[in-house]
């Protein structure tokens, strides 16, 4: 008489039998009500991904992006802090001296990255590189569609990371969020 609490089971075996039958029907009906609600009234939780996409969180961290200045050069100063802090050792930055002309007209020697490689296959998107960047040129964007069948194509050179276009609204939000993060916590 599993479904009926022991205290409610009648001592009369015939009444107990009908209690048993009745409680079986009731418990089955309760279960059917739950699944019936799921089938007819509840929203589907599955997202049919390629046809339909979820709104990503503003703090989603995916592919890296290196900001460029007005002339199209990366504003990175090749300090190598991102390479040093990276827990996965997936960033490689080498330095070169470049002569640039400042808006005032004088020539100036600055550090610029010679080689800037991120192995996205090793990256765990912890955002430490973006937080440590002193000139705020490295960010993690919400662009996550770069999966590949060949692991070597996940090794992205500087050209693949440069993003000349201005920040879109959500990326700007994301950057602000990342900056504010320390204060909030």
């Amino acid at each position, binding site marked *: 008489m599993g479904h009926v609490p022991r205290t409610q089971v009648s001592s009369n075996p015939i009444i107990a*039998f009908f209690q*048993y039958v009745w409680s079986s029907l009731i418990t089955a009906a309760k279960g059917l009500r*739950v*699944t*019936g609600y*799921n*089938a007819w009234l509840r*929203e*589907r*939780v599955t997202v049919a991904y390629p046809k339909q996409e979820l709104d990503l969180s503003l703090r989603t961290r995916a592919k890296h992006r290196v900001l460029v200045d007005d002339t199209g050069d990366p504003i990175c100063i090749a300090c190598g802090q991102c390479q040093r802090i990276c827990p996965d050792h997936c960033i490689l930055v080498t330095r070169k001296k470049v002569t640039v002309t400042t808006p005032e007209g004088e020539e100036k020697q600055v550090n610029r990255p010679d080689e800037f490689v991120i192995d996205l296959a090793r990256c765990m998107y912890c955002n430490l590189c973006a937080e440590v960047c002193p000139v705020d040129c490295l960010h993690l964007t919400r662009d996550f569609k770069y999966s590949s069948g060949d692991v070597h194509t996940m090794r992205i050179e500087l050209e693949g990371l440069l993003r000349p276009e201005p920040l879109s609204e959500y990326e700007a939000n994301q950057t602000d969020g990342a900056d504010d993060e320390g204060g909030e916590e």
Partner: protein
Amino acid sequence: MEERGWLESLVNGLVQPLYDAVPWIVHLVPLLWILVLVAVSVLILIWAERKVSADIQSRVGPLHHGPIGVFQSVWDALKLLTKEDTIPRQADRLVFCIAPFIAFVPAVLVYVVIPFGKGWIAADLNVGLWYLLSVGSLGVVGVIVAGWASNNKWSLLGGMRAAAQLITYEIPMFLSVVVVIMMAGTLSMDDIVRNQAGGRWSLAPPETPFAGWYCFTIPGLIASVLYLVAALAEVNRQPFDLPEAESELVSGFNTEYSGMRFAIFFLAEFSNTALVAGIAATIFFGGWSSPIVSEGEGIWQIFGDGIVWYFVKITALIYGMMWVKWTLPRVRIDQMLQVAWKGLIPLALINVAIAVAHVAWVGP
């Protein structure tokens, strides 16, 4: 007119000589209809099963082949056809190979006595219901034999469970069908439906077209619930799918089967599912008789008695069976036997007594 001439010449030139030469060929026509019906309905049922389970679990189910994935099971069938057909080395080869067909053939044969619509019955046997239940029970022989021939302990256990389940659940099933036989006074499936279509002896208001359905009498109502529970066990569906309990027996009797032979077991299972729903619709829910108008006029004709209503009822019953399947957890083997011997069989016996009283006092 031109088309009719074309058809006439086809009949005169091809069909008539064929009929003259081999007159028994007309008997193949219903057989062909049944085979096509079974094959197509099983494909639809497999798709429906996946969609219903997806609904219940708030998923979406198959999507990509055809509109809302209707061709998914066609592709699955093609995949199964092209798969390697492995036979275990220690298996009893002959028995292993014919077991799926032993399970499948009875599942198709029983459709012979199912009245799909007015006059849509392949053979109106005067022992139709008896034939249906006895031939329908043969399918389990295939399951037992498959379990034995696989030479695998899981398969054998699955087969043995199927045998125990069959022996147990035949009794409440037959006892609930007996109620209908008593009320109808006939074993012919067609006559049972006609009795219901013209009857007016139930709890339902007497003028309504569905007043004669046996599910609206007290013993018939109890019998229909008992029948549907026993039928779930009879066709090895959850919560009574112990012969193929995945969590205990790998895949039960069909563990060693692959490719087309596995597909035939699948076909038999779904064909049986449709069949028990069909029997329940016929003997309890008025078969092809319409619940709205029996003989409609004008636009109402499409709601009159006919094959459509039969399929509507079968669809509703199968949906119910799927709903139960994806709701209730599998029972344990001892619980399963307990449900039948301590629950269904006493109830069915009491119900037979009620039916005797019903027939004696209210009239059939």
